[in-house]
């Protein structure tokens, strides 16, 4: 085995072009486990830890660009205005894990339990990738995440990061697990309200082969809010029946399996409960002047 240590993105892309079989490693919080237990023996690895270009984020032209090398600890520290993303980041592993784990790792590993992924899905994020030969391309998150641990990344490409349109509105990320730290989620829900387009977006983690959007639930609640006049006037109450129906529709969107972390039935139930809570939190938060 060989470990390549590039010091710039260009150098890393050149190495990946020459050695497409090389496995990129950043925080190592997933890959090292497989290495330590002998489940992974790559011919070569490319350490992206010194590629500074990947470790930053910026806001530009109404969009947010988040580098693949940004750690969860940095997100928690630097991006407080992106509440669902911060909540998801803070729920990742432990302080030690958050100091190393990156959003690019979540994308590359493409586990349906990756905590940042439902947030990127609810933000309608694009995933940006690059190769030396063909340059940069980007695709919607659901075109990138093609299945459990499967992505549309070509062998000579590296994940550059994620990019999403900046939207005003409350939102949250919540997950179910057995304790408050070191938890691989049993089910997770990210809800993001888009006040500019009168939309509510809901994404689910750990309850399907990949991240799922609950589109019927999104349409139901947006329509109910429209007919009540709540988009214009957040003080208008949304009936409990609408919130219950929303929970049922989110639950119906889940496609979970039974596994060691939980049964399919429990996961469906979790989605309903988390969805109702998330909607209530968002509706309450809409009444706060910050969003008006």
């Amino acid at each position, binding site marked *: *085995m*060989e*470990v390549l*240590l590039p010091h710039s993105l260009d150098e890393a892309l050149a190495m990946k072009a020459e050695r497409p079989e090389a496995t990129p*490693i950043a*925080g*190592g*919080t997933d890959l*090292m*486990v497989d*290495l*330590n*237990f002998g489940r992974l*023996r*790559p011919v070569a*690895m490319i*350490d992206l*830890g010194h590629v500074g270009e990947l470790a930053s984020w910026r806001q530009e032209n109404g969009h947010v660009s988040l580098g693949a090398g940004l750690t969860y*600890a940095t997100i928690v520290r630097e991006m407080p205005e992106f509440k669902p993303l911060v909540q998801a980041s803070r729920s990742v*592993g*432990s*302080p*030690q*894990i958050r*100091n*190393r784990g990156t959003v690019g790792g979540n994308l590359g590993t493409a586990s349906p339990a990756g905590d940042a992924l439902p947030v990127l899905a609810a933000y309608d994020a694009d995933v940006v990738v690059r190769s030396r030969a063909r340059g940069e391309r980007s695709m919607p998150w659901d075109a990138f995440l093609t299945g459990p641990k499967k992505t549309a990344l070509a062998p000579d490409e590296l994940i550059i990061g994620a990019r999403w349109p900046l939207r005003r509105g409350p939102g949250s990320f919540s997950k179910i697990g057995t304790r*408050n*730290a*070191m938890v691989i989620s049993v089910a997770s829900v990210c809800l993001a309200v888009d006040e500019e387009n009168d939309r509510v977006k809901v994404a689910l983690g750990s309850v399907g082969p990949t991240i799922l959007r609950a589109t019927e639930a999104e349409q139901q609640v947006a329509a109910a809010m429209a007919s009540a006049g709540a988009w214009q006037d957040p003080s208008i109450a949304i009936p409990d029946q609408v919130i219950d129906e929303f929970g049922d529709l989110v639950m119906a969107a889940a496609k979970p399996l039974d596994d060691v972390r939980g049964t399919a039935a429990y996961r469906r139930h979790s989605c309903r409960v988390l969805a109702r809570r998330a909607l209530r939190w968002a509706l309450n938060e809409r009444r706060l002047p910050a969003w008006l």
Partner: protein
Amino acid sequence: MVVRVKVNDEWREAETWPGSSLLTFLRDRLGLYGSKNACEQGECGSCSVWLDGTLVCSCLVLAAQAHEREVRTVEGVTASDRLHPIQEAFVEAGAVQCGFCTPGFVVAVADLLQKDPHPSPATVREALSGNLCRCTGYQKILDAVSLAAARVGGGT
């Protein structure tokens, strides 16, 4: 490959298998046995060290990733022969039973108190959530943190 790391203020280098972890490198190549090997999957925090000043699980860092970088281990929490005030607090509070998790806890507590000399109970719990102890039930460890904070951080 040869990995060269500045460990506890001293440059050290050794030949290692490129796929080995920083933890293996520290223990088996450099003879620094303070960082403990328990889970090898980032669950237990027994191998906590600082990499360029950041608290990490050394089992989840490739030794090669630490090449030409700075590592501080539990052996480096204090330059003197005496115990660090955090270590003294652990002894006094009865926070050490079998002792296997202690080095990782000492490092994590030192990291916490550097950032927040007077952490709230909730902050302490979150900061130590990546370190497992199977003996104490944690209460005496929390007591030790309070004691250490009072001594290291001074009065509030």
